[in-house]
């Protein structure tokens, strides 16, 4: 019997047929040219790039087939911890598609950009109010670039004080996001790892032994990556400031504290926002996001340029004349389209809505913590913030691990939680399962998740094989991910033909 290739599993390059077309150009309205002559002998490529040739229907159908192979917030509960997969309002995308945005060229005359600069100016204002910082820049393209910008600003600050050569260390808790140490290294700092207390909070006595004149700052995530609010933020800031060092707050988990407390009031000097987490910019299968930073007043002169400013006559301008600025971290104005969506979202939430978002995010996580704590070990069973970290300690007795639980969730049409983060050195070797429901999920959905998780706990004991072989209804199952790295095949061979 011959096997029939499933069109849904075929790559665009494989369906390509010479001569097939989707888009057509208008007839050329200027004289044709001889390429060699027109390009004055510049070397041409040997042959055209072998891009796929498809018709519009097959092109659309290809991506619709791929769409069906994806879980997404609009179709699935997506409690991927640390990523804040909240609902993305449709109005964001619809308004963003206005020609006023899609055809806004950065080199239009400034007079034509007034509404855009005003929007950026207003959004900076919103973020200043939420964070308590006197100054914000919208330029960083993502959280990690926000971190980078924050550390560059800190570095520039110390260089101006003549301490650039001596302030070489950044203290980072062992539970931090991987981007924190990676950023510190990229920014030329030595990282000093701070081991957390068993409950995930900062060990103040230990911190005191690590901070000194060599310390440029500390990067702290609050709430922590264990989903817990750090109770001693004020003391931590005091310890750093006593040595002249700066406190950087990773605002990835701002969803839990917006409208509750302003990070600047803790004594934080710099923090970044993740607009794709807290302010509903769609995650886009990995990006784009945006990572603005807020800073205390002594750091403002070092922020990237240009900065949107409001003039006395009510007009807006972009100010690039700032002599102490670190320069630019991204071309033009950052991920402006993402900023627009965050602005629309924040305008809808308003003062009350921002606070309610945090309250309900925290309410949902605690509800799951309490509802599931008999079946799954809660890493630190006290009031949590917007996410709760379970471990697989109970299931491990049946040789079922976080990975198996995650894969079994797929069978119930739920996107798995984040697994194995925080890393094993933080969770005493137990496999972490970090669940973040977000405020936009209803109680029914949370109850459904609770029922599913309880069922999985039961299956662990009664039929562990069911978990080991999960998922059961997906196009592919349990991939050879080692092979992906040891024998990488990174392109479709036809593309190089």
């Amino acid at each position, binding site marked *: 019997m011959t096997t029939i290739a499933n069109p849904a599993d075929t790559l665009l390059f494989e369906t*390509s047929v010479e001569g097939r*077309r989707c*888009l057509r150009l208008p007839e050329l309205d200027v004289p044709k040219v001889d390429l060699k002559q*027109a390009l004055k*002998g510049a070397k*041409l490529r040997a042959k055209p*790039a072998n*891009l796929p*040739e498809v018709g519009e229907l097959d*092109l659309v159908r290809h991506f*619709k087939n791929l*769409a069906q192979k994806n*879980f*997404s*917030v609009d179709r699935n509960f*997506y409690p991927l911890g640390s990523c804040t997969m909240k609902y993305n309002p449709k109005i964001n995308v619809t308004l*963003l598609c206005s020609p006023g945005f899609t*055809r806004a*060229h950065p080199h*239009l005359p400034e007079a034509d950009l007034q509404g855009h600069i*005003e929007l950026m100016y207003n959004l900076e204002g919103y973020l200043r*109010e939420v964070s308590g910082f006197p100054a914000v820049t919208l330029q960083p*393209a993502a959280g990690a670039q926000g971190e980078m910008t924050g550390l*560059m600003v800190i570095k520039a600050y110390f260089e101006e004080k003549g301490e650039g050569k001596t302030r070489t260390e950044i203290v980072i808790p062992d539970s931090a996001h*991987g*981007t924190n140490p*990676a950023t510190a290294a*990229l920014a030329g700092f030595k*990282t000093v790892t701070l081991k957390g207390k068993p409950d995930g909070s900062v060990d103040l006595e230990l911190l005191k032994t690590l901070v000194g004149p060599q310390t440029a700052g500390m990067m702290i995530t609050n709430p922590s990556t264990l989903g817990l609010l750090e109770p001693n933020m*004020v003391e931590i800031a005091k310890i750093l400031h006593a040595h002249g060092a700066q406190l950087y707050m990773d605002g990835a988990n701002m969803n839990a504290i917006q409208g509750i*407390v302003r990070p600047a009031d*803790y004594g934080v000097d710099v923090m970044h926002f993740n607009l794709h987490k807290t302010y509903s910019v769609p*995650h*886009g*299968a*990995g990006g784009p996001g*945006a990572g603005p930073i807020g800073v205390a007043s002594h750091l403002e002169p070092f922020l990237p340029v240009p900065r949107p400013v409001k003039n006395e006559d009510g007009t807006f301008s972009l100010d690039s004349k700032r002599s102490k600025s670190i*320069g*630019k971290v*991204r*071309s*033009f104005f950052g991920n*402006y389209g993402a900023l627009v969506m965050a602005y629309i979202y*924040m305008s809808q*939430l308003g003062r009350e*809505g921002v*606070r309610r978002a945090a309250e*309900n995010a925290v*309410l949902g996580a*605690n509800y799951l913590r309490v509802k599931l704590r008999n079946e799954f070990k809660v890493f630190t069973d006290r*009031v949590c913030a917007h996410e709760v970290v379970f471990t697989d300690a109970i299931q491990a007795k049946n040789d079922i691990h976080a990975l198996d639980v995650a894969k079994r969730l797929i069978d119930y049409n739920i996107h798995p939680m984040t697994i194995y983060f925080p890393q094993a050195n933080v969770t005493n070797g137990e496999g972490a399962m970090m669940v973040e429901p977000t*405020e936009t999920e209803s109680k029914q959905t949370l109850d459904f998740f609770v029922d599913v998780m309880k069922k999985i706990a039961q299956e662990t004991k009664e039929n562990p094989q069911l978990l080991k072989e999960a998922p059961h209804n*997906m*196009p592919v*199952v*349990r991939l050879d*991910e080692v092979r992906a790295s040891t024998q*990488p095949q990174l*392109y479709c061979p036809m593309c*190089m033909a």
Partner: protein
Amino acid sequence: MPFIQNTEAERREMLSAIGVKSLEDLFVDVPANLRINMADTSKFKLPAGQGELEVTRHIEGLLAKTKNTGDYAFFRGGGIYNHFVSTVVDHIALFDSSFITAYTPYQPECSQGTLTFMFEFQSSICALTGLEVANASMYDGASALAEAMMMGKHVAEDKWRKEDRNTFVLAGAHNPDYEQVVRTYADVAGIKVVNVAAGADGRVDMEALKKALTRKVFAVAIQSPNYLGVIEDLDAINAARKESESLFVHCTSEPLSLALLQTPAEAGADIAVGEGQPLGNHQFLGGPAFGYFAARKEHLRKMPGRIVSETVDKNGKRAFALALATREQHIRREKATSNICTNQSLCALRALIHLAAWGKNGFVELAEHTVAKTQYAMKKLAAIEGVKLVYADSPVFNEFVIQAAPGLEKKLLKKKIVGGLALDKYGKGRRGQYLVAITEVTTKAQIDAYADALAEALKGKPAAVA
């Protein structure tokens, strides 16, 4: 409350299940004196929330205070280009929420849609650049160039352990935004950046470049077509760097040029980076779009960013998965090749759809039209008294520099024309010079109107010197 579905009754039920009395009790770890008091409206002064109707009106009000490329005959590029974007792109990338509301494909079984398009995207970047490995996207062209520098430094540290290679050469006319971003990254990484200026023909001064390429240099980057629109002689640059063995980074902000021009691989480049906006991404004041990043296979393990590989599942079926995560920050932490996490996947998806929608022959035709229109515009503008082509003898693709007179913008704007970008801020001696950009969107009628308006604006002005 907007987007929160639970009712007050449900909230009470949940609080009672948790065993606390009020929502306030969930924030015991926040010191009472720091908690925002909602009754005190002098603090935390966000405006009240608005419904969909009000917000739509507000945004429309802001947009009424703007104009866009559609309102003009528009002749500016300089890194972002006014291309046509097919409706198919928006329908798949924005209106089908299966991609836009998903995240990084950590769980491959329920993310094959994303992983497959990333693999196809990588394949199309390989097709364009001729290089064997491409990642799944960077933030933009500028930060991709900065990351290429960082990667070059990492390669150098391995390759020339005993040599002190700490210099990055920016050869020729680079986009000033790219240069600024590169310098910002270099400053904190302790890398020395050296510029080698363009010569009288708009191409990098080869004699100066040869002198600059010492054994201190770990990599040299060239933008082609460069910021002045001129296509560089890549073979000459490749030959010049051979002696110092520096790595060769190719960069462009108009990847449509790769449809026709010698590929980075053919030119001998180790790394190719550039701006992805011209490939199916809207202008959005310059972002979000994406940066593409490709390299020779030997550099794979030093590459930044996510990479997808074909593999098989446990039944032997073809499948796609994230590969080589041990380079990345969530595994390697301070030893990672880059700190990038969130990238620009959706913009990369747009590029893939755009490239497939034009297809092999359509993409070439698109580039050919661009060349023809650019040639027409050059002839038309150069024929005006008082206008000269600054690099008349050098090859260009979609942009070129004219010498006219300073301060012509307002006169052109009155005729609904946004003329070329004034270059006086770009360097000394560029007063009265403009960088003119052409795309498939530009019509003959617009070019003619630009030429007429320019001729009129120049009447009575002193003749151009170039």
